[in-house]
């Protein structure tokens, strides 16, 4: 039979081991230190933050890959404006609960990666001070064009215009997405590939059915033509 | 000299505390005034060098009786007395008259007339002597007191708790 209060002593032994261990094995500690920014003045608006993904990558990889902050637009590998996924269908603008997305559709169409002419957003602004990072835009987007970024260096002294993120600051490449949220990015790409394959299969099946129906119609037409000639 | 001032200060606090405890409409204010009264009395006991009694007074009255009164008030009605109902009983004038009569009867003839000992013996307050006294001549009283307290404990719980029996009759009737 365990001695009286054995459970309490076992529990206390665990916490004691944890307490002492945290001083010797540094890898136990889950808090990674926040290194201070350079002394300089904070940029006036979010756009002025360094855009090259190398600089932002240093920030976003310090936090673990579960963290989600504010949305970003995705483009496939290549020139951002050529391979942008967003087609300005404005579903996310309508679905966004705090209405913090503002899209202006472009007038003409440009070729996208699959060669189909598509609209693109001439203007795509997200007001970060209003966005509550609820990820509804990510769920409703049919083209997987908008996903959550985990960049946290966004503070600006200017409260009104400074927190409005323009389209060019939002655009990030797909492999940047792979770097910050590896599992989610992989799952999303897999889903896209699977959807495309399913669509092709469906198209192929539809094509065959159409061909079969055409042949059946052609055979029926020949049969009628034969009856008229008799 | 300091004794004189402390006595008068404590006396005034005690009288005010008692008056507030009795006259306040809001019972909670009354209980806290009563506790100030107990504290003032504990100070007076200290002044009269009855140190152990002051400690027991604080422990028993403020620590236990006060909290008990608070619990009792919480369980009964009309605590804050903000409804317009009258808080004094009907014959309150005669109550005042009786209290004043007792005061006058106590103060004037008995206290003025009696020749009271003025000598002040040196006292070294020691709990040990009190303990020994409690043991040899008063040990029976101590045991009876213990019995009384247990009986009061059981009686209080029974009286306050006695809901079950009546609840059943109320249920069947």
């Amino acid at each position, binding site marked *: 039979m365990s001695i009286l209060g054995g459970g309490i002593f076992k529990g206390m032994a665990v916490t004691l081991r944890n307490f002492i261990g945290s001083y010797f094995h540094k890898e136990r500690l889950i808090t990674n230190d926040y290194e201070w920014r350079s002394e300089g003045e904070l940029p006036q608006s979010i756009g002025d933050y360094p855009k090259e993904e190398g600089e932002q990558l240093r920030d976003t990889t310090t936090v673990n890959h579960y963290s989600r902050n504010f949305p970003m637009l995705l483009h496939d590998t290549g020139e951002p404006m050529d391979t942008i996924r967003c087609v300005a269908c404005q579903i996310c603008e309508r679905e966004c609960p705090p209405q913090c997305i503002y899209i202006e559709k472009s007038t003409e169409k440009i070729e996208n990666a699959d060669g189909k002419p598509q609209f693109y957003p001439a203007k795509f602004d997200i007001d970060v001070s209003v966005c509550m990072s609820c990820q509804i835009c990510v769920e409703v987007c049919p083209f997987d064009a908008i996903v959550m970024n985990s960049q946290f260096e966004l503070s600006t002294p200017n409260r009104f215009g400074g927190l409005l993120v323009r389209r060019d600051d939002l655009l990030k490449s797909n492999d940047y997405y792979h770097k910050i949220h590896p599992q989610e990015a992989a799952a999303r790409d897999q889903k896209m590939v699977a959807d495309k394959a399913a669509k092709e299969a469906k198209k192929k099946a539809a094509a065959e059915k159409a061909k079969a129906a055409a042949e059946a119609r052609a055979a029926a037409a020949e049969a009628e033509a034969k009856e008229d000639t008799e | 000299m300091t004794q004189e001032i402390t006595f008068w200060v404590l006396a005034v606090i005690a*009288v005010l505390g008692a008056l507030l405890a009795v006259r306040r409409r809001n019972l909670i204010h009354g209980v806290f005034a009563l506790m100030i009264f107990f504290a003032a009395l504990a100070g007076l006991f200290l002044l009269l060098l*009855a140190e152990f009694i002051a400690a027991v007074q604080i422990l028993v009255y403020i620590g236990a009786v006060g909290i008990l009164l608070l619990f009792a008030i919480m369980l009964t009605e009309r605590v804050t007395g903000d409804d317009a109902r009258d808080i004094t009983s009907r014959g309150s004038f005669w109550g*005042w008259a009786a209290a004043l009569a007792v005061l006058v009867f106590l103060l004037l003839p008995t206290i003025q007339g009696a020749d009271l000992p003025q000598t002040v013996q040196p006292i070294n307050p020691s709990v040990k002597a009190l303990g020994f*006294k409690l043991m040899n001549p008063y040990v029976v009283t101590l045991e009876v007191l213990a019995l009384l307290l247990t009986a009061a404990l059981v009686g209080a719980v029974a009286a306050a708790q006695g809901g079950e029996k009546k609840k059943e009759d109320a249920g069947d009737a």
Partner: protein
Amino acid sequence: MPVTLEHCLILGAVLFCIGLLGAFTRRNAVVVLFSIEIMLNAANLNFIAFWRFSDNPDQLHGPLFTLFTIAVAAAEVAVGLALVIAVYRHFKTVDLEQLDTLKEE
């Protein structure tokens, strides 16, 4: 002039009469218990005063008797409040004016 027995007795008498006043004039049973406490404490004060100015204080009669009265008072408050709660549960009021079921009509 230093504190004399007379001061304490007068104070004890005044406090006792305030307790009496409370007991006579208040409607609420709990306040009557307050006033009984005040009266008991006034009596304790007189005991200690007489012991302090007595000629053989090492007999410790005053403090001993006060100890017993404090114990009895505590027991009395406990039982008194239990009764008040029982009365409240039965009659739905602690107003002493309304608790007159013994009075014959």
